[in-house]
């Protein structure tokens, strides 16, 4: 504490009656609240708080249920396991039906091999072998047939 502040701790310092009276007038509360008024206010407050608030309760329930549903959805999507497939595989799975080039009822690497040989030798090609639908039958279609052959959904 500095020397200048010490004057505020001096309790015996003389204060005139007039100043004391003025200060009291300035800072004293303007009278007391009657006990009856206090009780009325308290009763009204309790009565209001005791009333059910259906809208707020409903909102709370709705928020809780929504949060729970969101958490369940996120949890399920996170723990579904490694079931991801690349877009090329999805594309290829759509074309699996047409990938049976040799028409023996199953798709294997020999279908891709036969299609590749047909393209190289300029042999006969069927329109349905345009697996990617780009209007040409080329190496991209061969790749799609080969990818269909090694797709893991086969023979699981």
């Amino acid at each position, binding site marked *: 504490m500095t020397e200048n502040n010490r004057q505020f701790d001096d309790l015996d310092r003389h204060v005139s009656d007039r100043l004391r009276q003025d200060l009291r007038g300035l800072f004293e509360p303007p009278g007391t609240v009657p006990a009856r008024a206090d009780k009325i206010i308290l009763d009204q407050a309790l009565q209001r708080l005791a009333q059910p608030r259906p809208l707020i*309760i409903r909102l*709370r*329930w709705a*928020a*809780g*249920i929504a*949060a*729970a*549903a969101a*958490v*369940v959805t*996120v*949890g*399920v999507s*996170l*723990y579904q*396991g*490694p079931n*991801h*497939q*690349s877009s*090329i*595989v999805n594309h290829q799975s759509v074309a699996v039906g047409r990938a049976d080039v040799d028409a023996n009822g199953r798709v*294997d*690497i*020999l279908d*891709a*091999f*036969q299609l*590749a*040989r047909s393209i*190289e030798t300029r042999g006969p090609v069927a329109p349905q072998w345009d697996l990617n639908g780009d209007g040409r039958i080329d190496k991209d279609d061969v*790749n799609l047939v*080969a*990818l269909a*052959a*090694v*797709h*893991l959904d*086969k*023979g*699981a």
Partner: protein
Amino acid sequence: MKAKVIGLLVTLSIVAPLLAGASGRMSKEPVEGRVRFAPVHVYLDSGDKPLAAYQFELRARAGQIKIVGVEGGAHPAFQEAPYYDPAALMNDRIIIAAFNTGRDLPHGRTRIATIHLQILGDAEPQYELKLIVAADPDGQKIPADLNLQTGESK
């Protein structure tokens, strides 16, 4: 009271999927044990016939593996990475295939692919190897023997 019920519901919703996921993983993963990486070399013997196309399937019969990569074979005709489903990566089963329409093709026993694996746990995995098809340059199926070799040496 109702706030507690909501809190309980939310907690259950968080904990239940976590527990379900954990139990699902625990059945696949070892509780303890090391993780190591090892290659598996796959050889095909087509005898005196030239090999123009092949397709096989490999899966783990015992032990826990994850496929992390696939590379081509020894002969120039099959040196490029073969075809496989990308979904096989980090899985324990894969179908691999390749073909070559050229005339320079391997005969006899040749390494057709190498599969890189992550092996979980100390147990040595047991593999099941199934030849789906092997063919000559005319696309005709040929008999062939398929086997594998583990270890770094090819």
